[in-house]
């Protein structure tokens, strides 16, 4: 049986209130064949953040070899940054856009690679910033990374930059983790606002966290949108773009 049957993948994206899908700066990408999954969150104030986030997620998933360590991630990030900068060449810009372009673009990123092996799967993940990975088993939160508490979400997370000047400093903040996944385990890759909400709701044993997971598993995007909007209105969830990838490890070999 192919890898395609070994995982079930669901995703959900909702822009902040009042924004259209074309303004959403969160991106997801996955390849259920190569078992690679990524979520990226473009920094709102950065130049061309939406394209940068989309590029990072898509290229990480599609890379010949998934960049999982700082040694691999650095050259790969440089390549992506050069692509982005080259795409801006030749455009005549106003003084302010020119200044924003000079600073480059920024995005938070988290990527997960699964690998079949014996019973269950091994996993490796890499993260830069405040987009998070969660591993759940039997309704319990088993792993959360790079952040795991709502209080850890600050106003200036490290981000993956497109420019050369900022890259080395950012790469020092890159973190990796690995582990084992049993059949039935689920992974959630989420951008910051949703991650912070999820950690808070889980800690409060708020049934909304479980409901969120069930709706996600059932791909009930209408109910998911209602849930997110309700949590935003109650000020439990920051009004920001949200994106999530849910990966459930199957039992079939």
């Amino acid at each position, binding site marked *: 049986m192919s890898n395609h049957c070994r995982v079930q993948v669901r995703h959900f994206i909702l822009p902040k209130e009042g924004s259209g899908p074309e303004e959403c700066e969160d991106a997801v990408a996955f390849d259920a064949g190569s078992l690679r999954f990524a979520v990226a969150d473009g920094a*709102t104030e950065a130049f061309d953040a939406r394209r940068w986030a989309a590029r990072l997620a898509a290229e990480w998933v599609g890379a010949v070899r998934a960049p999982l360590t700082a040694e691999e991630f650095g050259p790969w990030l440089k390549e992506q940054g050069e692509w982005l900068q080259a795409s801006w060449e030749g455009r005549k810009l106003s003084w*302010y856009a020119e*200044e*924003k372009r000079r600073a480059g673009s920024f995005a938070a990123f988290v990527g997960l690679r699964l690998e079949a092996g014996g019973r269950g799967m091994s996993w490796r993940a890499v993260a830069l910033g405040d987009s998070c990975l969660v591993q759940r088993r039997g309704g319990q939160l088993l792993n959360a990374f790079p952040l795991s508490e709502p209080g850890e979400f600050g*106003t200036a997370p490290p981000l993956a930059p497109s420019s*050369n000047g900022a890259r080395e400093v950012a790469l020092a903040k890159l973190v990796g983790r690995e582990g084992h996944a049993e059949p039935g385990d689920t992974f959630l890759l989420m951008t910051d606002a949703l991650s912070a909400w999820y950690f808070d709701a889980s800690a409060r044993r708020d049934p909304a966290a479980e409901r969120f997971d069930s709706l996600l598993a059932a791909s009930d995007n209408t109910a998911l949108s209602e849930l997110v909007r309700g949590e935003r209105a109650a000020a439990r969830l920051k009004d920001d773009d949200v994106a999530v990838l849910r990966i459930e490890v199957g039992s079939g070999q």
Partner: protein
Amino acid sequence: MGYTAQITRANPTLIVFLLDQSGSMADPFGGEGSGRKADFVANAVNHALHDLVIRCTKTEEVRDYYHVAVVGYGRQVGIGLGGALAGMAVAPVSAVADNPARIESGYRRVPDGVGGYVETPVRYPIWVHAHAEGGTPMCRALGRAHEIIQGWLAQHPRGFPPTVLHLTDGESSDGDPTDAGQALMSLGTDDGRVLLFNCHVSSSRSRKVEYPVDESIIRDNFARTLFRISSVLPENFLGAAQQLGVPAAEGSRGFVFNADPSSVVQFYEIGTSLTGMPPHIWMGE
């Protein structure tokens, strides 16, 4: 409380730069021995406007989170933004961005990513020119700011209230500014009263007083007058001040006396910080 409203395009805020352009602004800063106060201050205001524009820029679009007014006073009251904005009492920041009086070119050193630096061409927009002529009609200038703000508030009764950043180098030549200042500070939105911050620059080497909490440490009568028409720094401004290493505490007034050049730069940085948060927080509307 108050001063907590999120700045959005639907509910923008207003910043008024009130600038003394009297003849004495042609003198140098006390003890600095270099350059005219008027040139330094015009530069600082242009820099502040530049940063406001950049803070509102999303890729190629400038979002109107702020509106801006510039009122100069000296030989006359009302010399403000130049170029295509001349004659506009208040301009949205997108119009400010697109209409500098001129743009100068220069170079800046930026990191090249491999431990060195590279010279990169940059453009510096200029909106405000230095003027130094005439007296110090502070009451009329505060009155002009009052008119502008009152007109603006009629259209924007909700949201973060206007901030007035007043810079002067001397005593008022048209009377005691207390009433005009207090009248200005009595205006407001549903989120709070108008904020009036005062920065006094000096040609003498006198000791500077920064963001005092009470007036007992102030000996100079004119300084006391300015202290009394200076708003208490709301919490988010206080945060910005502390980030800059400025000695400000709860209850500090937005007031600097005998400011040196670095205090002038900090005054504008603190005065335009507003939410005290990086743009990706408040731009996330």
